[in-house]
């Protein structure tokens, strides 16, 4: 029963990681843009949410209505004014630009919010749980998991069936050829990054509800998002979701073996996947 509990808690933790990873799946997995500031942007959004929670009359979940549009605007600005200048076949310029942005954001957040850990005020949802047999399941992690499922399904459908999704996949496959077919790659990339960071806005509110955040936490979120995308397979949105589940379950099982082993176990599984199936679990056949 202890192991079943670990798996269930791992899947629920995976729901959180899936939300971190979806934006990364779109930017890194589809567009091949390496955004080192991914985690820092999420932490920035979490801290904005924490600050706004004391000012705005909404409940904690109501904050989503404010934070997601802010995230969308940040994503659009990030692509339009930074990444579109450096995007191309060579991933190095975008990596360097976002690395610089990451450092700048961390220092900006330290200046504004200090190094203290913060979280959204405790609410009924954050502490509510229900019991299945002898296993207790938190309501908030279930909401996070269901949200991640809906987001993954929605994003996958958009990429497969919408005009925007086709244009984005075309631009990611061959930017110049997409332009030759009437696609405006820069515009479509700006929209895609707005969506990717918009999803991070949702994750930011949930992260600040589930646990504490501080300005230096972005690197860990970045690593989890990268690992989930690579475990699942580049270019597959459901792959990122599955990768997040694998990472969550590995960490939960590691925690049961030894409380200090949780995060290490996740990294070990990531390394094992890299060694045995480097293209990822759900990678498309070439």
């Amino acid at each position: 029963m202890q192991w079943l509990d670990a798996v269930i808690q791992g899947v629920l933790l995976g729901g959180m990681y899936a939300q971190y990873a979806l934006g990364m799946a779109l930017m890194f997995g589809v567009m091949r843009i390496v955004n080192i500031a991914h985690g820092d942007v999420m932490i920035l959004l979490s801290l904005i949410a924490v600050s706004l929670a004391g000012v705005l009359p909404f409940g904690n979940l109501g904050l989503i209505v404010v934070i997601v549009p802010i995230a969308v605007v940040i994503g659009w600005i990030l692509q339009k004014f930074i990444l579109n200048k450096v995007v191309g076949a060579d991933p190095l310029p975008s990596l360097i630009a976002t690395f610089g942005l990451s450092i700048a954001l961390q220092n900006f957040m330290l200046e504004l919010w200090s190094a203290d850990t913060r979280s959204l005020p405790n609410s009924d949802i954050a502490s509510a749980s229900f019991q299945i047999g002898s296993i207790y399941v938190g309501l908030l992690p279930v909401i996070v998991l269901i949200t991640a499922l809906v987001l993954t399904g929605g994003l996958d459908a958009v990429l497969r069936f919408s005009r925007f999704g086709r244009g984005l996949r075309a631009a990611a496959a061959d930017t110049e050829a997409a332009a030759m077919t009437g696609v405006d790659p820069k515009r479509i990339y700006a929209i895609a990054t707005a969506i990717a960071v918009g999803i991070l806005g949702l994750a930011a509110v949930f992260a600040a509800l589930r646990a504490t955040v501080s300005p230096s936490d972005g690197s860990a979120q970045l690593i989890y998002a990268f690992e989930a995308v690579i475990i699942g397979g580049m270019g597959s949105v459901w792959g990122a979701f599955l990768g997040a589940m694998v990472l969550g379950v590995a960490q939960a099982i590691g925690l049961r073996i030894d409380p200090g082993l949780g995060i290490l176990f996740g990294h070990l599984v990531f390394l094992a996947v890299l060694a045995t199936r480097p293209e990822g679990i759900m990678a498309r056949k070439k």
Partner: protein
Amino acid sequence: MSDTPILSTHGLTGGYGDFQALFGIDMHIDAGEVVALIGANGAGKSTFLKSIFGLLPVDRDMVKFEGNPVGGTPAHMMVRRGIAMVPEGRRLFVGMTVEENLRIAIDNARLPEGEGPWTREHLFDLFPILREKRRQPIEDLSGGQQQMVAISRALLCQPKVLLCDEISLGLAPKVIREIYEILPEISAFGTAIVLVEQDVGLAREASNRLYCMLEGRITLTGVSQDISRDAIAAAYFGASHAVA
């Protein structure tokens, strides 16, 4: 035909960064005309097409479309104006099906599918194999079939001018014939075709007029059927410059 050519270039110069590849190219093409651009490797033919199509920077007045200066307009805007390109090497979207490759052109075309001359059904009638393979990933198709998709994709942009860059490259003679047989049908809709081709015989046969390029300059131009083989050889290899 009106007096204004549908597409013209005026002293077009250009290249890649500091490297100048084109030296004052003057060219024009009328609606429904097929113009071939021949020349050896490195003559500047593909660079010329890319410069017209907004893939390389040029001055605004160097390219005119329907009499309006359009030089330097980004490629995706050129598609909306009515120019499409079949690029060298086909450049299809790997990981997507035949149908999806075509849908991208329809999504961004100058006119909606039903309002322009070209529909998927029409193209599937011209290339029946594509109807059979429409749900297959593009990478599963042969080179010839991929070229058919590339031409169909460009036509679904409903262009007034079609730029074709080496569409016979690497294909079997039977497939080349099949592809070249549809060019008269395309021009019958009033679409002008600029045909970059290394096979001189093929280019002469398929075009109304031809231009020969050498080292970034036009060395010969005239009505395709009137130009002698000797004149082409001289212009192609640079023994002397000639005008037929």
